[in-house]
């Protein structure tokens, strides 16, 4: 639509507009379009939209010991907000999300800066990016598990630190704590931050930076007023990827915290395990609301449709 308007403003696109209008009116073409989009659209509505609505509905059902009944009640909702454990899980999920988001941003940005701005050769740029993506091709669960021999009491990190004499006793709090969960998630998701930022940075016109330098701007000032603002859409896209994945996490926290760190995702898994479907649905709805809120807030920062 925007493109059509754009062409009209250009004053060149009358024929295009006419063609679009004709295409829209052509009943044969419309039938083909309808047939083409029908299977995909039906699939998404039937297996994604309906189940999500079902989740909202079931969250108001009555939970019996092993079954649920469609008698509407607020009991599961009240149980969630009156329980220290469950409400605490919500706060913990948000805290870990914030920490991992900050960690992926601060760890990922310099790498993205180097790949996007400092490597001029396109082939080399691709090679370094692929190098970052390769670990993604291993099984997710085994990637998580690989942190255990890294962080454990007799793990690689402790051995190295003891060898170089930084510590005399092994650090025990590395594994099965919130720290190990944050490290594990950061390593797994940081690539999703690096990619979009590097992409935006590589599109910056070098002459813009040269001009600023010629006019006497310091490196920090150039970064602050030109480079960072131009990379912001990449940061937002990366932040959306990381946020959605971290908020829905449960495997990393289960494997690396010794079941001590319970996120909303972990609560859903345990509740389903004990057939408390209504309660699991409540947690699911809360998680959905949190994610929708965060994604909407991130999208407020930049207008992605305009930027990309």
């Amino acid at each position, binding site marked *: 639509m925007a493109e059509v308007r754009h062409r009209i403003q250009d004053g060149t696109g009358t024929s295009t507009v006419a063609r679009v209008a004709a295409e829209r009116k052509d009943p044969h073409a419309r039938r083909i379009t309808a047939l083409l989009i029908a299977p995909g659209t039906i699939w998404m509505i039937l297996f994604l939209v309906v189940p999500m609505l079902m989740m909202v509905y079931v969250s108001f059902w009555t939970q019996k010991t092993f079954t649920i009944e469609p008698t509407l009640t607020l009991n599961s909702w009240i149980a969630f907000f009156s329980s220290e454990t469950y409400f605490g899980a919500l706060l913990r999920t948000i805290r870990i999300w914030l920490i991992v988001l900050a960690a992926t941003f601060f760890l990922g940005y310099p790498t993205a800066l180097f790949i996007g701005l400092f490597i001029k050769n396109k082939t080399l740029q691709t090679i370094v990016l692929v190098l970052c993506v390769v670990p993604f091709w291993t099984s997710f669960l085994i990637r998580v598990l690989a942190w255990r021999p890294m962080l454990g009491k*007799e793990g690689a990190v402790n051995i190295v630190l003891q060898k170089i004499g930084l510590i005399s006793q092994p650090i025990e709090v590395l594994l099965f704590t919130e720290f190990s969960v944050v490290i594990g998630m950061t390593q797994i998701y940081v690539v999703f931050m690096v990619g979009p930022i590097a992409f935006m940075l590589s599109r910056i016109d070098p002459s813009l930076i040269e001009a600023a330098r010629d006019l006497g701007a310091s490196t920090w000032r150039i970064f602050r007023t030109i480079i960072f603002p131009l990379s912001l859409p990449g940061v937002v896209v990366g932040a959306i990827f990381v946020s959605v994945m971290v908020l829905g996490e449960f495997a990393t926290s289960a494997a690396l915290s010794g079941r001590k760190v319970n996120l909303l995702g972990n609560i859903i898994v345990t509740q389903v395990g004990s057939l408390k479907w209504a309660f699991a649905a409540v947690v699911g709805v809360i998680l*959905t609301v949190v994610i929708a809120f965060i994604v909407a807030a991130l999208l407020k920062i930049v207008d992605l449709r305009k930027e990309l």
Partner: protein
Amino acid sequence: MENRPALRSALAIYTMLFIGFLYAPFVVLGILSFQSGPEGGPQFPIIEWSTYWYEHIFGLTPPSRVAPLPIGEALVRSMTLAFVTMVTSTVLGTMTAQAFRRRFKGSGFVFYLVVLGMIVPGVLVGLGIALVANDLSIARAWWGTAFVTHVLYTFPFAFLVMLAIFNRFDKSIEEAAWSLGVPPIRTFRKVTFPLIFPGILSSMLFAFTLSYDEFPRTLFAAGADLTLPLAIYGTFSVEIHPNIFAFGVLTTLFSFSLLAVYGVLMAASVRSAKKIAIQEDIE
């Protein structure tokens, strides 16, 4: 910016450390997979280098207190599921993207609806489908409910890839074929398909690897028969042995061989496209 050598080398060193951070766990995992067995544990030091745990996976070692990984049937299920998911999502993705080459009412709605599939966390998708299946008294199974949730996840990837491919080539090529009287099916086979083949290959690679490794969407949807990630997850709760590390190394090698096949097919398709271009030049 680029004429600041100090900053440049600082960032270069940082990037190397960063890549080291991404790879370190794998290196450790790879080393520990050669731990001696069955008495060697999943930690340092290496008692003695051996391939015991690799043999253990294939059942070539004498029975010991360490139970073999329950992966045989799960592997077959995961492969089958990944294959069917790959075909389904590539077909759906190509069809939907084909429709998007024409402007139509409600295209924005369809676009966001499809993209939603890769944004909604897997644990919620799995929970939702399990609730619906329970309510309708449909038995949950890896080939039913889990298959459906896998396609929800991989179809958007296929769709976006195909959208990018269709955006890149000119519609007039096909229109030329039609106006010369070539029937639409033949046009698709002879003109459109070769042009979009790289996209199809990429969507297939995405779909297969994503489905093969998919865990959160499968957990509540698979029912009693486990897929591979579920079988691996099951070993988390009990004591871990280096056989899981050896298995990690093997699956990584498998993924790389898939990537290699993809690379070879991709190179071949680029070569044949070039050949056609040259022929056109000559003519």
